[in-house]
């Protein structure tokens, strides 16, 4: 009987990994409407501002997770992108006197642009080198802002006096308006990311994360995919940064740096790296934990760090992975005896051998199954019929430079992939 249970569970899992799950639009809208009543029922301004902070954090982690979790780009400069969005928004309202509503979209665009500029040179770098490059970019941004003594960015003290979005409302209503706005935006971004990850584009990203060579062999254009994903991630980051700056009426360079980055790493990894819900869960869980430990500020970091080490050691898929697993168990238990007709054993075997997919894996190469697929990609690349070389402009040629050109040098080049 337990055999059948596991077969049913495996079948359900297979069905989930092999099909594109539907974007849960209606449940999300219902959830948003329910949550929107919180500030009306629970009239505590402190709690509401905390909720806004959590929502802002989850936007930030969502944007970062898109590059580091979904695509496997080692992007450790995301805080600089968020800060660029915030500074752009803030500077426009302060220096040009623009309304925050007009400045925010500009901040969003600035974030997207900065992200693309940052990631472009690191696309061709291997893991750790890419992390160093993006980190160096972020440090350059931070140090330039700190070094700026002309008063343009406020130097180490940051920008102050940024206009808010709801300045004409009373302070507690402005807070509530921020809550509703960030709630809706957060839900919208989540739906967007979910929709994106369950499309050919998102599947391409996941496939690139699991095996670059295989994906290129399958005709996925690595550069276009990564640039698009980075752009979207940067836009979300710019939005989060702009909202942050207008919500707190300011932003300081201490927003970036090693410590805040560590906090964001903890949020993303504890929630679940490379999943849609993970970053949101992580942002909420870690912020709530911080609040519980509010009286002992320094213990907070130690406890959060220990939490991350525990999660890494025992549940590398994070809280989201845990939830998913218990949900699977529950469903398996409820479906006992349901899925026996179609020869559960085969499905179970197939499910065991099909680990590629946006499952709760820490962007790991998919175990032993990755090896054959790498070999397969070599075959695909080698067997590609020679196409007549197309003359095209510089940028387009650069974008397509990854695509297998079946020239004589390729088989040799493929050997270089054997990494230790």
């Amino acid at each position: 009987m337990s055999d059948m249970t596991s077969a049913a569970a495996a079948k359900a899992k297979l069905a989930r990994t092999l099909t594109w799950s539907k974007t849960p639009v209606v449940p999300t809208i219902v959830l948003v409407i329910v949550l929107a009543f919180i500030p009306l029922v629970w009239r505590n301004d402190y709690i509401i501002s905390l909720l806004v902070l959590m929502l802002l954090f989850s936007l930030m982690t969502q944007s970062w997770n898109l590059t580091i979790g979904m695509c496997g780009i080692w992007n450790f400069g995301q805080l600089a992108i968020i800060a660029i969005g915030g500074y752009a928004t803030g500077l426009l309202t302060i220096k040009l006197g623009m309304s925050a509503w007009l400045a925010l979209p500009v901040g969003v665009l600035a974030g997207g642009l900065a992200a693309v500029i940052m990631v472009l040179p690191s696309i061709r770098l291997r893991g750790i080198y890419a992390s160093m490059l993006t980190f160096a970019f972020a440090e350059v941004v931070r140090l330039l802002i700190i070094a700026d003594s002309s008063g343009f960015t406020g130097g180490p003290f940051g920008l102050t006096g940024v206009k808010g979005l709801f300045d004409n409302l009373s302070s507690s209503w402005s807070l509530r308006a921020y809550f509703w706005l960030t709630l809706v935006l957060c839900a919208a971004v989540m739906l967007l990311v979910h929709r994106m990850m369950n499309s050919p584009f998102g599947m391409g990203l996941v496939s690139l994360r699991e095996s670059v060579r295989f994906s290129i062999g399958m005709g996925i254009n690595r550069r276009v995919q990564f640039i698009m994903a980075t752009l979207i991630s940067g836009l979300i980051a710019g939005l989060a940064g702009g909202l942050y700056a207008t919500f707190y009426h300011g932003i300081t360079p201490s927003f970036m740096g090693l410590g805040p980055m560590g906090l964001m790493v903890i949020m993303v990894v504890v929630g679940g790296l490379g999943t849609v819900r993970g970053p949101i869960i992580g942002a909420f869980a870690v912020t709530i934990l911080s609040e519980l430990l509010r009286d002992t500020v320094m213990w907070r970091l130690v406890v959060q760090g220990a939490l991350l080490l525990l999660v890494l050691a025992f549940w590398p898929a994070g809280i989201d992975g845990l939830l998913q697993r218990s949900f699977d168990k529950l469903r398996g238990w409820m479906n006992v005896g349901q899925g026996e007709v179609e020869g559960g054993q085969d499905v179970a075997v197939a499910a065991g051998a099909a680990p590629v997919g946006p499952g709760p894996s820490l962007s790991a190469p998919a175990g032993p199954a990755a090896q054959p697929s790498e070999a397969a990609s070599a075959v695909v690349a080698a067997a590609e019929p020679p196409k007549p070389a197309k003359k095209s402009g510089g940028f387009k040629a650069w974008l397509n430079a990854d695509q297998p050109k079946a020239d004589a040098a390729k088989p040799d080049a493929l050997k270089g992939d054997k990494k230790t």
Partner: protein
Amino acid sequence: METLVQALISGLVFGAIYAIMTMGLTLVYGCLRTLNMAQGAFGMVGGYAAWVITTDMGAPPIVGLFVGALAAAGIGILTHFISIKPLVGRKDIDFEMTAYISTLVVAIMFSAAIILLFGARNKAIDPLVEGRLHVFGTVTVAWQQVAVAVVAFICLGGLSLLLSRSRQGLSIMAVAQQFDAAKLMGVPAGRVYWVTMALAGLLGGIAGVLLAPLYFVSPSAGDLPILKGLTVAVVAGLGSIRGTIYAAFIIGLIEALVATYLGSLWSLPVLFALIVVFMIVRPYGLFGKPEEERL
């Protein structure tokens, strides 16, 4: 001319500190395939241990150097057992990224723990030797800088002897070259791992104690050194010992020249901007192997 010589001297001294500090990163990366973000925290802990033993208990600074180095070595072993060992050999995670994240968080935990123990205020620490040496004209060198250079060269020499002559060092090199082959030859990989981390801690601690009189001992004293160390390691090509030494001195000199002629506020931004350009031109560092052809 004299400013130039002054800048060159300070560049060489900082290069020497960066060399021993980054050597820890290089060894750990070569052996454990982990970019150890806690290397800066080792130096910070070493500085605190030296501060406790010299300023609090009145021991001479040279004892502080030894105690700091040993304390940092202990912290290195601790880091290995809490953040790297649980991840080694796991199939369900991407080891390099996970270890990077866990050591980064360990570094943050150490500085939080230091704040809990000693408070957030900067502590001043006495240099190993006082006074300045007059070379010529207005060029002077603090004896501390001379001592730093001497200690650094002793460390590098000792390290190269250790790695090329001793059994333990040879097993580190063997694991770094070919993990499986080393294991088949009977090298105890588990022990090599923590010995390497202890060695990295030792080097980081020495660098931390040497840097402490130049800056201060503070809970965030590890942040800047780790950034510099990462820069050096990346310019060198991760895991390359020869490259590390060259890159450390190159970066020390660039930094000193920029600080002298543009102002110290600009040294880091210029340095990082140069790194960005360098990595676009040569993505695998000076001496690294191009492990993946341009993708």
